[in-house]
């Protein structure tokens, strides 16, 4: 569900597509990335997955008029139908991957801190209007529906993650059954997004915010929004926690 998947997008799509991380500038704390400049043009997700960076959307936490280098806010494609296209960039670093201009992602968290590359709002585009939550569930023989935010943890190159929610329903034979507990799932980011086989249409699309995104040394925080529709993934390793 969107209120859960938004933070999965944050951790496994938005963070690894930060250019400063990919170039080693965050190696001592936030980490590097499994995505490198050589990944541009390569498939890292299924064809159902198109992600955009957006600093213009009304009522989103990461929206600005201009970034901290004076670059006008814009919208840009990060992943197009599963193919990695663009890093998040600043003026200082965009040229390092051959870009002629920045995507406007420079930001400090206060007047007293140093601007550096921070993520914009990152959205997973909705699927076709005839894909519904019910049709996604109907295509599942044995699965779990996850809503809300639980525990989130991911490695420093954004490969291995474990995410939990705060409400879970068993799915059997294409039907949503009763609630279950102690659920988390582990995965490897590129495998996870390539296992996506459907996302619901625009009427299901929802946006949620997070205010505690930490990066940099000394740590700075960032507030951004992520949006998506209910989305289905196949063959995911679901585990029982304490």
């Amino acid at each position: 569900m969107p209120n859960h998947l938004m933070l999965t997008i944050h951790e496994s799509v938005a963070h690894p597509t930060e250019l400063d991380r990919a170039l080693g500038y965050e190696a001592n704390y936030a980490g590097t990335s499994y995505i490198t400049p050589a990944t541009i043009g390569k498939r890292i997700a299924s064809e159902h997955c198109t992600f955009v960076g957006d600093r213009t959307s009304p009522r989103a936490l990461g929206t600005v008029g201009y970034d901290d280098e004076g670059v006008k806010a814009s919208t840009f494609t990060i992943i197009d139908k599963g193919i990695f296209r663009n890093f998040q960039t600043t003026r200082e670093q965009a040229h390092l991957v051959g870009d002629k201009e920045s995507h406007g992602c420079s930001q400090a968290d206060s007047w007293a801190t140093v601007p550096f590359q921070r993520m914009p709002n990152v959205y997973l585009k909705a699927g076709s209007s005839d894909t519904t939550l019910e049709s996604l569930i109907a295509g599942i023989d044995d699965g779990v529906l996850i809503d809300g935010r639980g525990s989130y943890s991911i490695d420093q190159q954004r490969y291995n993650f474990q995410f939990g929610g705060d409400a879970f329903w068993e799915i059997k034979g294409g039907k949503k059954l009763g609630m279950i507990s102690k659920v988390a799932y582990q995965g490897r980011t590129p495998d996870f997004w390539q296992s996506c086989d459907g996302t619901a249409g625009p009427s299901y699309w929802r946006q949620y915010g997070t205010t505690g995104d930490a990066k940099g040394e000394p740590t700075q925080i960032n507030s951004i929004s992520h949006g998506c529709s209910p989305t289905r993934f196949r063959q995911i390793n679901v585990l029982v926690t304490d």
Partner: protein
Amino acid sequence: MFTRDEAQKIAQKVIGYSTFPECQVSVTASGQAYTRFANNGITTASLGLRQNVSVTVTRDAKTGSYAADDLDDASLRAAVKKAEELANLAPPNSERLAALGPQQYPRTFDLDERTAKARAPEMIPHVKTIIDIALKQKLVAAGLIERTHRVTAVANKTGLFGFHEAADSQLTTTVRMADGSSSGWAGQPSTRIAELDSAKLGAVASEKCAQWKNAQRIDPGNYTVVLEPTAAADIVRLIESGFSGRNTEEGRTFLSKRGGGTMLGEKLFPEFITLRSDPFDPRQPSSPWTGDLLPAKAITWIDKGVTANLAYDRYWATKTGKQPTPGGGGRGGGGGFGGGGSLQLDGTETPLESLIAGVERGLLITHFWYIRGVNPQTLQQTGLTRDGVFLIENGKITTPVLNFRFLESPVRLLKNTTKVGQAIRVRGLEGGMMIAPALVATDFPLPSISDAI
């Protein structure tokens, strides 16, 4: 930075503006200087100075708080007025206790002036030392050297006043292969910046990086582990919330008994496990007052394996007929240890090499990353190993291995600990500090592999 007298004058001025029967003021000033480096070069150097006054007023158990960064009279008056407006809107707090009277706060910390004043000229030579070590081996260094200096004063309308000044520093570095095929880390916090040993840290991180190259994939599962001090602290310090007296008595911690009661006084851990808070240890700065503004004292939480104390804040202690715990920390009963990062797990004289030599088959872990709670009652956590994991066979390090995700609680970890080594002050990647030894623990769950280097 404020002197004691300057801070007291500001606090008294704010208290004088308040029309409410209770008014508590906190005056803080902080200075932070740092030099950051990556890809074998300095990327950022900064000096930041901040000041802040926060005011909390209470009338008829209704409380409001407001903070100001501008310290002119008009701004301070406006902050008090805002706090009083907010209090008028707030519902009464049924757990509100009357403000504390004057307290005698102990001196916890001898400020090191050199640390408090350090700027880039003191830091850059450390950065150069580390980068030179990395360059000689065609490696790539990143890191941070930082010092902080903080002055805090608290005061209230009853005449309570406390003043505390502390300085701290840290140096960390991650050294990676230029092609990203290996990584090593080392770090050191110190209340005395002159003690930061950049040559040693650069050498340790570079050696780890060289040794971890060509990490092999071995099966996930439960392993005996040797946790270096930072790795041990990364997990052990998360036991804190389990010692909340209120949460335990309400059945919400690992020390709660089914059906009621607590495990206070029970031997849950091995004989050699002693966990304490000591705000007077000169190795790590700590506040002289608790979150409830009571004077801080040293306290033992686990004494030779026995649960020795729970943390009671003033409200819950009053309600249950107990004494508030000097290290009781937080307000509202949730606090755990509180007390400002003075936690320490006792060690021994055993060096890390001897701990490794005693392991037939296990893993040596440098430190952990992105640790998050999975279950607040059992304290199960998940996170990942980082910057050096090595297979130990017959007492010797034989093979670098890929990173793992872990799924373990500090409670189970301490129960399964078989040996502890020498304790040192450490700082985890996500900022947690304590004095911790390396330790050996059995049956440590590592359920999946991470490809991250």
